[in-house]
């Protein structure tokens, strides 16, 4: 590197050192993060990960100088304002933490809506004034009600994937609707010869939860079906046995302490039912006691 400044050499060397000393190297995009927020995120990551911003060329040099096999594949994921993240934590967990630390941010003109942006119906903080016209002009159904501007219906104002128009961005901010998310956007992470891209790193926690419940239900079903006794299946089997026994006792009209009241009650209720139908034909068919 003949024409490379000394500080650049130092930086590449220090990046290389970080690459070699961590199991996981992530490539993130820091675009659109306001400085104070970035400071905060850095601090919260302090114990578990190190975030380094640098020039693309220097990061490339550092990656290429590493002995780690296949780590140069991270170069393909340098987007926006790239930064390297170094950690020893499971890359999936790293991704989860970074996603979880993202915060809502105001709309920016020209930004792409990550999902449908909806202005919900309901009261606004605005007193009647020119804002009403602005809302209506942006396509938001608004009117004046009891001295306040009220939005009459939910309105999807920007569809997912569409750019946010300038006037809409300003209205959304005034309505305190923050449709964008900012945070450290982990594009890919390298561990042990493999580069995991963000789509792979996305964990569907709800599915995991559903799978756990499914596994448990399946295990319980199988236990009960195959009569394998464990502390989960035995209560179910006991209930089944108790229900079937009670069914048999009641259907065979066998009186015991459990069935007695039920059978007496049944006889009485049946009598009332027959009496009701008889008295519907002729009031005098039943005695006064029942008619009341």
């Amino acid at each position, binding site marked *: 590197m003949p024409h490379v400044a000394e500080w650049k050499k130092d930086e590449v060397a220090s990046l290389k050192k970080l690459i070699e000393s961590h199991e996981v190297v992530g490539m993130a995009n820091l675009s659109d993060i306001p400085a104070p927020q970035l400071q905060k995120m850095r601090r919260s990551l302090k114990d578990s990960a190190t975030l380094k911003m640098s020039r693309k060329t220097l990061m490339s040099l550092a990656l290429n100088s590493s002995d780690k096999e296949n780590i140069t594949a991270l170069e393909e994921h340098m987007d926006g304002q790239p930064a390297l993240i170094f950690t020893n934590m499971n890359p999936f967990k790293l991704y989860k933490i970074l996603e979880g630390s993202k915060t809502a941010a105001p709309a920016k003109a020209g930004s792409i809506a990550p999902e449908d942006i909806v202005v919900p119906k309901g009261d606004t903080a605005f007193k009647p004034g020119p804002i009403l016209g602005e809302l209506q002009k942006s396509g938001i159904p608004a009117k004046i009600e009891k001295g306040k501007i009220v939005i009459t219906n939910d309105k999807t104002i920007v569809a997912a994937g569409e750019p946010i128009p300038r006037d809409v961005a300003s209205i959304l901010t005034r309505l305190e609707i923050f449709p964008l998310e900012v945070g450290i956007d982990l594009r890919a992470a390298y561990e042990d010869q493999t580069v995991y891209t963000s789509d792979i790193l996305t964990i569907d926690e709800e599915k995991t939860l559903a799978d756990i419940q499914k596994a448990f239900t399946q295990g319980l079903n199988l236990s009960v079906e195959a009569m394998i006794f464990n502390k989960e299946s035995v209560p179910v089997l006991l209930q089944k046995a108790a229900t079937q026994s009670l069914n048999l006792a009641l259907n065979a009209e066998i009186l015991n302490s459990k069935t007695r009241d039920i059978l007496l009650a049944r006889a009485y209720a049946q009598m009332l039912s027959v009496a009701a139908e008889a008295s519907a034909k*002729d009031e005098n068919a039943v*005695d006064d006691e*029942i008619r009341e």
Partner: protein
Amino acid sequence: MEYIYAAMLLHTTGQEINEENVKKVLEAAGSEVDEARVKALIAALEDVDIEDAIQKTAVAAPAAAAATTP
């Protein structure tokens, strides 16, 4: 209510629900029989499907049981 029980008893044992039978059952149960009521009951039950009425309440009885379960 004894008149109804007598009728249901006869229904269950498969006997005809007529004046004579109802009276016989009631007397066996130590009841003083009111002939007019027996006649009225028998006439009224002629158009009643007792089995049906009984089935309808199959629900009611255990209901009580459940209701009292702590």
